[in-house]
């Protein structure tokens, strides 16, 4: 996994899946006010990231952990070329920033491979959100990526178990 060194240039956007790289690039070009408005816009669309009625998935992981205010569900579908599609369900208590990140990740990681998803570094978060919005009480902005990766690992483990 690539990690940004504090004293070096930020990682190139090519280190992210292309759709995510485009979103990062968009946000990095925005002034602070527009960044907030764009985050709100993404948050407003988070409900569309939830599973549709009748939709089926290769893996579903719905739970509420001790360190989170509400239930988050990760739904993973793996295509024939091992490209992944995610749906995410969020409980009503989830913070706006987390909703925005959900929407961003569902779009940004769509059609990536499982391996690409697992290699996505978390350093894109401050590049999107900016320094002012990431603080002690908004660490859950990283949580959705953690859960998405966890779902991918669980899928791979299940695959290996089935093959073995």
């Amino acid at each position: 996994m690539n990690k940004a060194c504090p004293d070096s240039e930020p990682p190139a956007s090519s280190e992210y899946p292309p759709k995510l790289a485009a979103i990062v690039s968009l946000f990095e070009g925005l002034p602070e006010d527009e960044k907030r408005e764009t985050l709100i816009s993404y948050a407003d669309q988070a409900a569309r990231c939830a599973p549709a009625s009748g939709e089926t998935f290769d893996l579903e992981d719905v739970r509420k952990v001790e360190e989170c205010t509400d239930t988050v569900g990760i739904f993973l579908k793996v295509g024939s070329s091992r490209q992944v599609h995610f749906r995410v369900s969020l409980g009503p208590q989830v913070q706006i920033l987390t909703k925005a990140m959900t929407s961003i990740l569902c779009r940004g990681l769509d059609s990536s491979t499982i391996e690409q998803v697992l290699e996505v570094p978390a350093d894109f978060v401050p590049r999107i959100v900016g320094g002012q919005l990431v603080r002690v009480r908004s660490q859950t902005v990283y949580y959705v990526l953690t859960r998405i990766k966890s779902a991918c690992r669980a899928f791979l483990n299940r695959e290996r178990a089935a093959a073995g």
Partner: protein
Amino acid sequence: MNQNAYANPDVLVSTDWVAHHGSDPGIRVIESNEDVLLYDTGHIPGAVHIDWHTDLNDPLVRDYVSPEAFARLCSRHGITPETTCVFYGDKANWWACYALWVFRLFGHTNVKIMNGGRDKWIAEGRELTRQKPSCPPSQYPVAPRRLDDEIRAFADEALAQSKAGKPLIDVRSPGEYKGVITHMPEYPQEGVLRGGHIPGAKSVPWKTAVNEDGTFKSPGELAKIYSENCGLLKDQEIIAYCRIGERSSHTWFVLTYLLGYPSVRNYDGSWTEWGNRVRMPIDRSD
């Protein structure tokens, strides 16, 4: 203690009052939340936003902003020393009480809380807007000093309080108090190496003071909690703490304004300081 009325009943205003008077001259409604983008998704018409982190905290040192910075903040929001600031927010007004306490730290005394906070306003189906108000800048004098001595406690003072057997109120969850967990329930770890509580502190979780809808309990109920059950006396010096000072601001507000205890201080360094500091005494008993 008068069990029929709050000590300062005017400090609490209803959602209805804000709906009718929020835009009156001399009134400034202020939203302060934990959810950093919540205000932007919709707020009470005319309300300005004060971000507890970027507006009230020093960006470098763990402390509050300088008197100069506070004056600039107020000026930007069209607040004068005569302005009545009505605070509200999420989490049953945690951060609204925190912001109110910081305003008091700089000597701004015209303060109120909208009872029930943001959730009550929304539950009542009242109007929200995304439009941000435009406030003409005002003149706000720079306070000569912060009132740290009067309403704020530091680690050495909390330690002295503990050693002297004076009242310390731990407003965190029971699990945090006992040291079973080192983070707030349903929150990520905020980085403390040791769990437990300050020796001699009594556990009175902040939530004890509010109803399900986030409004404050009645005078009689609050008196039972703090004066009867906890044994707090009016002539005592009291210190309240939590993890970073926001829940204890809520309790500070209850004790100071609703119950009228004259000498209450908020130890804002709280457990993230105490639990990381070398050789501070810790208790894990019930």
